């Protein structure tokens, strides 16, 4: 690429620069705007007078004596008990990641080492399952879950999310295990290990990069889920995303939409950190299936 870079005409460079800056603005600006606005009062963030008010915050100054206020955060976290939803989310996310990785590594390892044709077809079935919109499955759960008294509890949502997550986890981990040479566990078998011992002592120590990448995506699925958690959890077991949705229903009329803005910022912040620390893994995970397949 060095040759072409040297020869690139100035106009093209300018065009590329403008395009990139436009895209970056498009990608970042909404987040910056919302973060800034979350420290204002509603009259400023949604200003009838003009958008400049959201920057300077005259009404915020009038009401709180400073151009920034934490009122939205206080209202959301303390008054509306957003912290409870955060704890619920934490439980759900940790459990989903741990369980789906446990199931996924076992299943993915088996699929990658099987020489029979059914392993291939199981992957195709998983692909079909992956394509099912979760809401269609949820409408299948409700009646049996009511009958069996399973509705509303955290473990129910956890196991459902694990199952919905399995097809994707299986695909990623199978691709990953196929890259670990078969000789490794086969030589362990020759030395007298059972298949499980070979998995336990030879594969597990070397599988962590792939497991971490897959785990990140399981995390995102559980963290970002709205459909399953909104429909299957009772009010006191609500996780963060349905909680935000419920703010919109109840508080928009009271003029406290800023609670929702504050909690939106609170939900987005951990995701920023996640991308910052795991950018390499996320990129490699997104491209793993695509570039090789």
């Amino acid at each position, binding site marked *: 690429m060095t040759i072409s870079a040297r020869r690139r005409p100035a106009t093209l460079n300018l065009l590329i620069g403008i395009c990139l800056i436009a895209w970056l603005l498009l990608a970042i600006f909404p987040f910056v705007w919302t973060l800034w606005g979350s420290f204002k009062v509603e009259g400023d963030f949604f200003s009838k007078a003009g958008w400049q008010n959201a920057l300077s915050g005259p009404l915020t100054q009038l009401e709180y004596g400073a151009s920034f206020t934490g009122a939205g955060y206080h209202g959301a976290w303390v008054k509306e008990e957003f912290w409870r939803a955060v704890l619920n989310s934490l439980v759900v996310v940790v459990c989903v990641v741990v369980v789906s990785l446990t199931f996924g590594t076992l299943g993915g390892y088996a699929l990658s080492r099987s020489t029979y044709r059914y392993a*291939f077809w199981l992957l195709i079935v998983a692909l079909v399952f992956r394509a099912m919109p979760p809401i269609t499955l949820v409408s299948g759960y409700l009646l*049996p879950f009511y009958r069996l008294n399973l509705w509303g509890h955290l473990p129910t949502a956890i196991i459902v999310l694990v199952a919905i997550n399995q097809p994707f986890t299986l695909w990623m981990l199978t691709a990953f295990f196929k890259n670990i040479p078969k000789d490794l566990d086969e030589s362990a078998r020759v030395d007298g290990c059972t298949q499980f011992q070979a998995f336990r002592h030879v594969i597990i120590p070397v599988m962590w990069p792939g497991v971490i990448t897959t785990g990140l995506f399981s995390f995102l699925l559980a963290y970002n889920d709205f459909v399953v958690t909104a429909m299957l959890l009772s009010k006191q077991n609500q996780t963060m995303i349905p909680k*935000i949705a419920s703010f919109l229903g109840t508080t928009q009329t009271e003029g406290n939409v800023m609670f929702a803005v504050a909690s939106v910022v609170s939900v987005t912040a951990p995701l920023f950190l*996640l991308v910052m620390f795991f950018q390499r893994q996320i*990129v490699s995970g997104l491209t793993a299936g695509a570039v090789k397949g």
Partner: protein
Amino acid sequence: MRHAVFLRFFLPTALAMLTFIALPIVSVLVQSVYAPHERVVVEVENCTPFGCTKSTVIDQEATRKLQEERPLGRFVGGDIYADRSHLAFGEIGQAWRGAETWADFGRRVMTLPFYKALAFTLTYMLFVTPLSIMLGFCVALAVNALPRMLRGPTIFFSLLPMIVTPLVGALILFWMVDSRGIIGSAVQWLAGDDDLSLKASTPLTWIMLIVYGTWSTAPFAFVVYYAGLQTVPQDTLESAMLDGATRWHRIRYIVLPHLLPLTTFMFLIKIMDNFRVFEPIVSFNAGAHAQSLSYFIYSDLAGETRLLSSAAATSVLTVAGVLVLLSPVLVRTWRQFGKA
């Protein structure tokens, strides 16, 4: 690996998928052919010294007993599929006979909720998928031209719209396009109309949702293409340059063909994902103007009286739609590997 050992390793994930993906599909199929019981009504005579009046009341006892005996409801076969809020055969037939032109027929069909949802879902899918892939490709080309030092931060910021929770990302955009928000007032200023609200009109709502969809899925295309661009064979590019190929020629005849398999892969994934579009409609509070199939099911389930049978019938139709979309892939795989 022997069958027994394979089974032992595969059992947990197989059980999870069977119980919570395969069984619910069966459950949806069953629910969609049963309707809730009608209430048992009895006629009672109230006699007072001034005469007798007859009135009908619901027999709670009998209704409960019926519900316990047959918890699924009464069997109605395909009736739910044929009713007005699903395939609406009767209404379609009427529209067909009554309509004078194709446009008129289309207008009549679009008053039926299921077809309206289907139309939005397909429109969304058909616009967002190619738009986001094209935008992603352009960004990938541009980032690839950057000096190495700047690429990391650019990728970081580009990933954000995709990583952020769909419901949350859509809300952030929704607040900005509010008529009192920054984009909303900018649009009002551009159009010179102070009362313009993007939320109040159906076409504008659709455009907003499509813009959101493109914004949130372009990063995926970008990342995949960016990785693909790193694998373009450099010597082919250089020999093309020696032969006098322009920059555009090189993209057209070397880079694009090289990226073709990636593009088909992305189309497959994105078509599946865009077909289930749901969260942005909740965030944009756009149910009145744009319903997707997923949202249609959700609004049946979330209402005061949960319309389980209706939701189940829509779910079955949606699953059928997914299978139709997937069928080219499945048929091709079957041809390639099934018989070999």
